């Protein structure tokens, strides 16, 4: 592995050396038309410098997407919120402030199968509360506490799951897939060594919020699952 790195380094360094030498030698000072070339170099360098300065100005003017809207969150608070959400749900007192999505279905059948179309929800925490009457209605909710990336609230980027009632089957799916891509700028290493940041490695902290599906089903509805685990309120 070490040798491969050295060889790659050697190829890159060699390539750069070759390029610089070629560029410098192809425009030797002794070449005819030197003054015209000098002017050309000045124009290219001046143009490049101008672009860099304009970029600096644009940086202070451009509204950066995502950068300013993200709020800071307390990681300890997030962890305790997650525990509270889960315990409250099992006690049948789920806090509505964590509700992200809600579904209502009319269902007259005696049996209901709950399934997932993706592996994502195979280990999904599904909490079921039986109502006190058979009202023929299924109420479902997706609850989730805040998620954070480097101490910033990224909950707004979480794609919500989908829930559909297809005949006698309640199907969980996640469309679109929850793949979030972040970009972060770091100072050049010549600055990082004085700011206490890591020199050539990067550190990110990601915490996913606690999430559960909470179902309220008619009193006598029989539930079946294929691979999913159900937890009952008060059970």
């Amino acid at each position: 592995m070490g040798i491969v790195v050295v060889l790659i380094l050697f190829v890159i360094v060699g390539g750069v050396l070759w390029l610089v030498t070629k560029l410098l030698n192809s425009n030797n000072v002794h070449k005819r038309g030197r003054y015209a070339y000098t002017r050309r170099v000045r124009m290219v360098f001046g143009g490049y410098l101008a672009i860099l300065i304009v970029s600096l100005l644009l940086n202070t003017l451009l509204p950066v997407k995502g950068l300013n809207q993200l709020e800071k969150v307390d990681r300890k608070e997030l962890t305790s919120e997650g525990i509270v959400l889960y315990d409250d749900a099992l006690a049948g007192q789920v806090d509505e402030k964590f509700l992200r999505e809600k579904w209502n279905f009319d269902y007259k059948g005696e049996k209901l199968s709950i399934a997932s179309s993706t592996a994502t929800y195979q280990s999904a925490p599904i909490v079921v509360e039986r109502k006190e009457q058979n009202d023929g209605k299924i109420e479902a909710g997706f609850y989730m506490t805040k998620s954070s990336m480097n101490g910033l609230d990224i909950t707004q980027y979480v794609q919500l799951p989908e829930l559909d009632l297809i005949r006698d089957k309640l199907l969980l799916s996640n469309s679109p897939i929850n793949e979030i891509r972040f970009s972060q700028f770091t100072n050049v290493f010549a600055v990082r060594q004085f700011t206490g940041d890591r020199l050539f490695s990067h550190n990110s902290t990601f915490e996913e919020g606690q999430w559960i599906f909470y179902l309220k089903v008619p009193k006598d509805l029989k539930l079946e699952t294929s691979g999913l685990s159900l937890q009952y309120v008060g059970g």
Partner: protein
Amino acid sequence: MMSLTKVRLWDVVKQQYRYKLKGYIQVFMSMVVLQVLALIFSLNGVGNAGASGGLLNVNTSYFSADFVLAFTMLWGFITAILITTKAYSNDDFIFVTNRLSSHLSNVLFLVTASILGGLTTILSTFLLKVIVFLFKSDVYLASSADLAAPMTLLVGVSSASLYILLLCSLGYLVGTLIQWSKLFAVLLPAVFVGGLLLNALSGEAGILAVLYAFFMTESSFPLFFLKVVCTSVVLFWGAFGLSNRLEVRP
């Protein structure tokens, strides 16, 4: 031929320096080309990190001008070697000159080149940001690097310039060694690459690790400044000393 005019050293150095700024201007063309190339390489990010929870998959790309600085340091190294070659050093004889004035004007030119290299390297961070903001649709995470604080810019330009100057002084010594004996043109790369391979094979920390620890882990800017300036002075001084052993130009 004898000259009746008494020429002061500093005047000659200034004249030669001015001449070199115009005469060696092509080196800045190669710097621009290299920095643009490094910026293109940087568009994919200098690092990636992925994490997955039960529900979410996150991927973070890190962007910085690390490649630009590394390429510019290499450029400084090559530029310093090239100005020690006969094709360049013979230009000095346009003026009434001696080796000292020639060296001093070369050092001044390399210091200027290092400052320009450091300045453009740090400014290129902002060009990289604009390109990524405009053409990538990711979510941006705030970091201290987003603040164009004057102090950070000043430290950035200074330290980047010092790194380039360090490589320039090393290149100047290497170039002078090669002028002294062409054998070094083969010997030095062989020793360098061979040493790297041997270190990689044995798993030992080599000279690069020592240099890394000495310069790059220094967290105090004044100390870093002292280290780089002292090392550069020693390297330039070594080149001066060696060149005195070179044959006099016919």
